[in-house]
């Protein structure tokens, strides 16, 4: 697997997780699946500011970055604004990082993710559940990939929701690193 493929895949994973959190509240607790479904039904544009703290084996210190997230059906833009500027665009056609373009046809994980993104764009809970088992505790959704899923490299994800059903934070732990993303300035267009 090429570096960019892995990279883009994991970026997609983070975004999937974000949206998945809206759909994963199928069980009990304070989160209500049907309300979430209604909340995001007909979504045409989602924008948010994300503050991410990353740590990992090769990071000499926790690394904090600020990202502008921009989602429309069929396209996700993950734009770093601090401490550097760089844009990653994710779509069913693949991943675009400046002069690097990766069609999804060459990585099974990438294809799984793009398929899952498609499911998410359609708010397709059944498709989501093919890759994750979901457990709801309070206002947090815990998602664990199924062993057979191509996303099994993700150890676990937690999604925290506000009472307004807006996403508050996402924590992703993988085999080698972790990321904590805090969401603010969320704007939803329908």
């Amino acid at each position, binding site marked *: *697997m*090429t*570096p*960019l493929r*892995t*990279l*883009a*895949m*994991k*970026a997609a*994973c*983070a975004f999937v*997780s974000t949206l998945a959190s809206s759909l994963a509240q199928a069980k009990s607790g304070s989160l209500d699946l049907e309300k979430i479904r209604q909340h995001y039904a007909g979504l045409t544009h989602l924008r948010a500011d994300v503050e*991410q703290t*990353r740590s*990992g*084996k*090769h*990071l*000499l*210190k926790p*690394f904090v*970055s600020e990202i502008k997230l921009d989602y429309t059906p069929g396209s996700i833009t*993950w734009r*770093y604004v601090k401490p*550097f500027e*760089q844009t*990653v665009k994710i779509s069913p056609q693949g991943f675009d*990082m*400046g002069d*690097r373009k*990766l*069609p*999804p*046809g*060459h*990585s*099974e994980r990438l*294809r*799984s993710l*793009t*398929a899952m993104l*498609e499911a998410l764009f359609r708010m397709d809970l059944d*498709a989501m559940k*093919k890759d994750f088992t979901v457990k709801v505790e309070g206002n947090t959704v815990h998602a664990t990939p199924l062993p*057979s899923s191509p996303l099994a*490299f*993700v150890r676990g994800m937690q999604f925290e929701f506000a009472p307004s059903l807006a996403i508050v934070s996402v924590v*992703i732990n*993988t085999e*080698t*690193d972790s*990321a904590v*993303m805090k969401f603010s300035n969320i704007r939803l267009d329908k």
Partner: protein
Amino acid sequence: MKLAAAFVLLTALALAYAQRSLRMENDLVSSLKAKDPEFGQVFERAQSSGLFRGRIFVEPPAGARSLPAELSAALVQEGYKATAFGAANPSPVALLPLAVHLPAVQIEDALSEKGLAARRDDILAGMMLPGGEALADLASVDPLGFLPRLADRFAQAIPGSASLAAPADTTPVFVFESPKPLDFDRVERIHGALQAAKVRFIGEDFFAYENYATIQRDILVCALLALPLNVFLYFVFIRNRRFLLFTLAGNVVSYAWGLFAGAVFFPAFFGVALAFTTTFLSFNNEYLVHLSGTHEGKSKGRFLGVLSAIGTTFLGFVALLFGSSDLVRQIAVLSLGGMAGFLAFLWVFRRVMARITFRTFRWRMVSLGPRTLGAATLVCAALFVVALPTVATHVSAFRSFTPELEGNIAHFTARAQGLSGGLPMALEVDASENVSSVVAAIAAQGDVRAQTPWAFFASNDVQRENVVLLQTRAAAAVTSLRESLVKLGIDVPMNPGAYGVLGVQDLPAFCTTLESLSPLPVCAKTKEGGFFIFLTRDAKGKASAVAPGQALAPNSPLISSAPLPGGATRRAWSLEAERYYDSILTGFSRELAALFAAGLVAMIAYLWTLHRALGKIVYILFPVLLSAVAVFLWLRATGGSLNIIHMLAFSLVISVGLDYSSIALSSRYQEDDMSRVLLTGLSTLAGFGVLAAARHPVLRDLGMVVCLGAGLSLAFAVVFRYSPASSEARPS
């Protein structure tokens, strides 16, 4: 009595041996081999025998990403083992040796300060993504970031590298290794489970099973139809009905010896050949009916007629023995075995046979003089030449699949073509050539797609230049990149010597590297030490319309844009499976046509020794000529081509059709003998006519042509009597 007992015992032993040894060949089509062994090997390699052979492919309903649990369990229970489609995605280690084929300017860019800064930013952006740590391992292997460029150039251009299991439409295909040996009962069960699960599936197991199921059904239906029809004829024509048992016993003996002969000469049978044995009944009836009268010693002429009838049948089958097609040879061996068994039965039980009497019928015949016969023969000969259709056999004539499997074949073919990018072909290159120049020259003509890894093969000069660049400057560049990342808080271990080990790749090394990247074979060695590289042609491009002199037909050399070094002709072969099998079968057809002609000459010589009169021989042969013309006109009218099945059918028409006119002539049209001719003719029509009810196209075509030929031959023999003294046809 002792002789009869010994014969019965021997027959039982032969049947037991046949039953124990009888094996079914899995698939008639896949057993076809090209006459040119080198071409056959290249084709087999290109067909990726290791990837597609012995496997089945299952695609869940659209949108689903896994197979139903019950189906997965059923597959495991039946011994199907889940496996990957082919090689894993190219690993960085496998791709990196190809860096020497990059344009020198790209390597210069990567080594420049600007390039190193861009690379630093890429690594930074990537490692900041959730899960971006994985980038560290790849940055260690390829610090300067050549891999994405190499993946673009090579991995994604390799046919089939985006495997069937991972299509763009996101519906996966699950691959399973088939258990060995092929067990039709097991395949039947899994075939049913797949149908019940409403999934798409394809694989050799199902090709073999559906052919087998069709033939099994055809054998049963044809046998059930042929038997009562023949029994009815016997009730009408034979006075003593108890001899029905005699003929039935004789047919059992005939089957036993036919199968025994087949088992001795062939390790496995094609289902179609076995289904052909349902026609034994017709042949055997003919021998019985004619031989049962020879004891009466009515005339020498009549005995000659019987000899010519059996002799021509024998010669017809012997001629088929010389064919290259296993199917044709199997039919010949089975038939000769059956013939020998039945004749032996008649000889052992000749006293019983002698007591058989036949009902005699009488009808008016029309006299045919030599002039009329000659004129009719000339007209038919002219029509034969004018109406001769194209000789070609299509592989589809040998397959009988359900509409569901046909639909699945079309579906998976479309997906596979989407992956490989077009129609496969092999192009010969010399090991010393710059393969990218050769491909570029042909691609410029529109013959092949330019999007191929071979187009990125760099000349030795370019490679040497790149190697020098990497050996002298890469280590320092890697050290600098690592230090710049450490300053940003990222410490990725990077090997400064990662690129120093790369060297110039010759064509064999390039082939080896590509093979390690692709799930499909990309090249094959020639006998002369060169290579066949596998390319794709655009199915819709001008290459699909092959120009004269550039025929990409299998086994035909292509005069390409440039000759091989030394001026030799460069070979280019189409590797399309259908064209490959079509060409083999068409070759068999032409060969069978030659055998047909040789058999005819042998029969004419044989008939000459018996009759020694040109007019008589023309009279005997005329129905065959008439039948051929009728079939040619029918093919012309329907737009069909003359295929190997028609050739085989013609041989049978000669075998049975000649007998009617031969016996009629030899017996001087006596009522008793003409009644026998009528009985055998009707029996043959019944035997082959029921093949019209077959589902398998081979049996159906065979039945239709033999019925047409035998019907015309019978009609001619019972309507026209040859009168050498008469110059006009008149009522007799």
